[in-house]
């Protein structure tokens, strides 16, 4: 009952925030596109037809034109949403597992464990994370699966730091002490009592993290370290279009717009969620 | 009889929240004379603190709003004053001290700066004069080595010392009236005794009218001259302190007195008031206390009684006040 009424309150607050609703609409739209891409694309995104190469937008039924291999750009962009979302969700899942685990461990046990993990987090923060990811990609070799690993491995520290702070605060709560006094074990206390109470900042961080991961993937793919041709990754499409940036502008403008709209949508949603879940965090 | 410094007449402060209207203060009237201490007792949510912020005109709006009544201070209605005029009155003619002395002091300024600032805000003094006034006030409230202490920061002081600083600040402009909202609740017993003693001394010295809000009947018995007992936004009993403890007239007052453990005498089982305070959004029909009152009869559920004077200087809001006990 309270859960319901609580989520009602959150939903009400979110609904009031116009920018957040824009973000939510974009995000849901993106999800629908990713899910139904095969059903809605006008052309197969992989079919090469050199006779259709470099059509400008609108020509011969190609809404957003075609690339140098004659593939329909609109279809490729729709399929690209699948890749982007995959990257965002999978990397964030990896990062959440590591981040929550590390953060909870550091916050709950404190002492040496905390010192070590906090040290590790600081080391990660001391380097640009994209540089780290590049180093990992260079070792593992390019490819989408390695992107998941590389981005997951570098993006957990932010989350870990947030979870650590939350746990530090929550473990002093009397209801946690009450369970300890009852004889509850640490694992149960963390999983059942502490983590559910710090879901709000985790959700917000993860939403923003998805955006970050999508951007990083585009960057890595642009550098040739991520998704490999012929995958319709937005970053890769940008990279391919770069050669023609002055003459065939649609090859860079539309993938760029797709990335921008996606990131904007997710960030708006993340910010809105933060304000709705915890009005105090706004200040 | 001394002339009243403040007269509250039929004050109504409501809070307009999503679920409805909370009548936090619903028709409260009382007066306080010079050098007199009026105690306001009641449990959480009875409206005692809202009464005090209403007098200071500090009700958060929205959701709160003073919807009716008069607050006559020196014959003028505070509710008619502009915000600018109120600023001149607050801290100068009417001061307030709060329960939590830690959060009411700014941690980045010395206590001397803070007292001097509140003095300079209202009185035409130089910085130096204001500072020596601060030292003088710290002396008055019994802070040892005041000339040294005046340069210290709030965190360097203990809770009791901070409350003394708050009192010094409140009294620095010689206010006509002091509103004290649970001033000793956060303090230890031995420190509470010090502060209560101090308040009594200062009241006699400055002839200030004090409105003391507390939930502790012990504190009331100790320092109040007259008492208003509040329940669910209304005064249910209003009389002098002797009468209240010896001849309580309202079932709620009687219940409160029976439910506190006595330090002296034998230890019978406590007699608590049954049930819980009703939700302010869902108050009972008729007398607001009827769902917890052991004497409640049919009439109590039909119509709410008025606050009537049952003998000189003793008012009770109960249909059957003459038939209790």
């Amino acid at each position: 009952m309270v859960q319901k009424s609580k989520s009602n309150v959150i939903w009400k607050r979110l609904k009031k925030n116009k920018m957040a609703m824009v973000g939510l609409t974009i995000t849901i739209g993106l999800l629908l596109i990713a899910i139904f891409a095969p059903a809605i694309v006008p052309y197969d995104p992989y079919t090469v037809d050199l006779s259709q190469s470099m059509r400008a937008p609108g020509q011969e039924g190609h809404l957003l034109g075609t690339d140098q291999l004659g593939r329909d750009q609109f279809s490729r962009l729709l399929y690209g949403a699948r890749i982007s979302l995959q990257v965002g969700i999978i990397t964030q899942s990896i990062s959440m597992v590591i981040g929550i685990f590390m953060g909870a461990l550091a916050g709950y046990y404190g002492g040496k464990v905390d010192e070590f993990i906090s040290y590790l987090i600081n080391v990660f923060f001391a380097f640009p994370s994209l540089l780290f990811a590049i180093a990992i990609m260079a070792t593992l070799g390019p490819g989408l699966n390695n992107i998941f690993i590389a981005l997951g491995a570098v993006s957990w520290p932010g989350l870990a730091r947030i979870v650590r702070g939350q746990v530090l605060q929550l473990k002093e709560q009397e209801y946690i002490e009450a369970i300890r006094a009852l004889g509850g074990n640490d694992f149960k206390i963390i999983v059942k009592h502490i983590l559910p109470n710090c879901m709000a900042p985790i959700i917000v961080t993860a939403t923003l993290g998805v955006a970050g991961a999508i951007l990083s993937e585009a960057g890595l793919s642009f550098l040739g370290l991520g998704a490999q041709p012929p995958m319709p990754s937005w970053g890769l499409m940008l990279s391919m279009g770069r050669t023609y940036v002055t003459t065939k502008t649609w090859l860079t403008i539309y993938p760029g717009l797709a990335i921008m709209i996606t990131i904007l949508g997710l960030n708006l949603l993340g910010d809105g969620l933060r304000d709705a879940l915890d009005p105090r965090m706004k200040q | 009889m001394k002339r009243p410094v403040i007269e509250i007449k039929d004050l109504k402060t409501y809070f307009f929240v999503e679920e409805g209207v909370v009548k936090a203060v619903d028709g409260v009237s009382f007066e306080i004379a010079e050098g007199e201490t009026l105690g306001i007792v009641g449990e959480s949510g009875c409206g005692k603190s809202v009464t005090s912020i209403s007098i200071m005109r500090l009700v958060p709006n929205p959701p709160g709003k003073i919807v009716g009544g008069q607050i006559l201070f020196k014959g003028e209605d505070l509710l008619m004053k502009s915000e600018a005029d109120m600023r001149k009155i607050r801290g100068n003619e009417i001061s307030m001290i709060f329960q939590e002395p830690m959060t009411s002091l700014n941690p980045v300024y010395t206590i001397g700066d803070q007292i001097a600032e509140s003095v300079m805000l209202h009185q035409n003094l130089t910085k130096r004069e204001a500072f020596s006034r601060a030292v003088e006030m710290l002396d008055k409230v019994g802070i040892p080595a005041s000339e040294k202490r005046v340069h210290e920061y709030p965190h360097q002081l203990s809770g009791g010392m901070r409350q003394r600083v708050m009192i010094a600040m409140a009294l620095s402009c010689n206010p006509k009236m002091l509103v004290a909202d649970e001033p000793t609740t956060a303090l230890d017993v031995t420190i509470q005794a010090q502060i209560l003693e101090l308040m009594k001394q200062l009241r006699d010295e400055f002839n200030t009218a004090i409105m003391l809000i507390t939930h502790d009947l012990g504190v009331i018995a100790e320092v109040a001259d007259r008492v208003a007992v509040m329940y669910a936004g209304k005064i249910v009993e209003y009389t002098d302190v002797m009468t209240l403890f010896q001849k309580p007239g309202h079932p709620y007052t009687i219940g409160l007195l029976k439910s506190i453990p006595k330090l002296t005498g034998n230890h019978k089982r406590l007699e608590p008031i049954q049930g819980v305070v009703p939700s302010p959004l869902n108050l009972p029909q008729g007398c607001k206390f009827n769902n917890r009152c052991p004497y409640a009869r049919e009439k109590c559920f039909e119509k709410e009684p008025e606050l009537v004077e049952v003998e000189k200087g003793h008012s009770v809001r109960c249909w059957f006040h003459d038939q209790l006990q």
Partner: protein
Amino acid sequence: MKKLLEVKDLKKYFPIKGGLFGRQIGAVKAVDGISFDVREGETLGLVGESGCGKSTTGRLILRLIDPTSGSVKFGGKDILALDKNQMRKMRKDMQIIFQDPYASLNPRMTVGSIITEALEIHNLLKNKNDKETRVHQLLEQVGLTGAHARRYPHEFSGGQRQRIGIARVLAVDPKIIIADEPVSALDVSIQAQVINLLQDLQQDLGLTFLFIAHDLSVVKHISNRVAVMYLGNIVEMAEKNELYNNPRHPYTQALLSAIPIADPTVKRERIILQGDVPSPINPPSGCRFHTRCPYARDICKKEEPVVKTIGEDHIVACHLV
């Protein structure tokens, strides 16, 4: 009467770290060598002002905080020697009720699942129906109804939440309950309800209480014996009427005289103590109370007073007694 709990020379120093390398630069002597027994079926009151170490004592006994030194025996068994698992099992017999009924219940769980959890931690009942019946029975025992099990903590008032906390504690059928300021967050009229409930439960279930509070009237009402703490030490302990009628330690005397009495006809000689409680980081030498004591002499500054027995069950730590 049998001693259920024996505490000997219990100490807890919290380290203060500072400096560039986080070395220990001092210690808060929260509890500094206290000894007392709690007898089966009785209520021992533990009073003192904030920072005197009374709440820390409660948590040390339950090993929610690990003591620096000393011994705690429960039913003759040294519980400081238990490992983590044995201690978890031990917790079934030793329970705690907290001060803040708003903070001690997980806001995301229903009342039913909060109490069921206590049963499950100690594997008390297997069958789902049995658990439900037991939860309802427990709620009724503390003056609520079975229907309340489906609700969430925020739907209850402070007094009702404290009842829920008590029901959770009773679920594991403990022998001793440490009540840490259980009524001080409650309104006056509700305090009395909870105090009566605790007394009824003690009678019905044969419970033993260690009742920690700062309110001397409440402590007197509920306790059989009372111990007074000041800055990490017990300064006086006696049967309650003896202690309240014949206080021997100057601190106890001052404390008792400082309580405002809800009767304006009572006029008392007040002992107003000067100054504040000193910091437990560097407590005063000798008798810790000497900085505020109206009778302090030279010896009080130099030597720590030994605990003297001055009557049946009445002990006091003061040079001048």
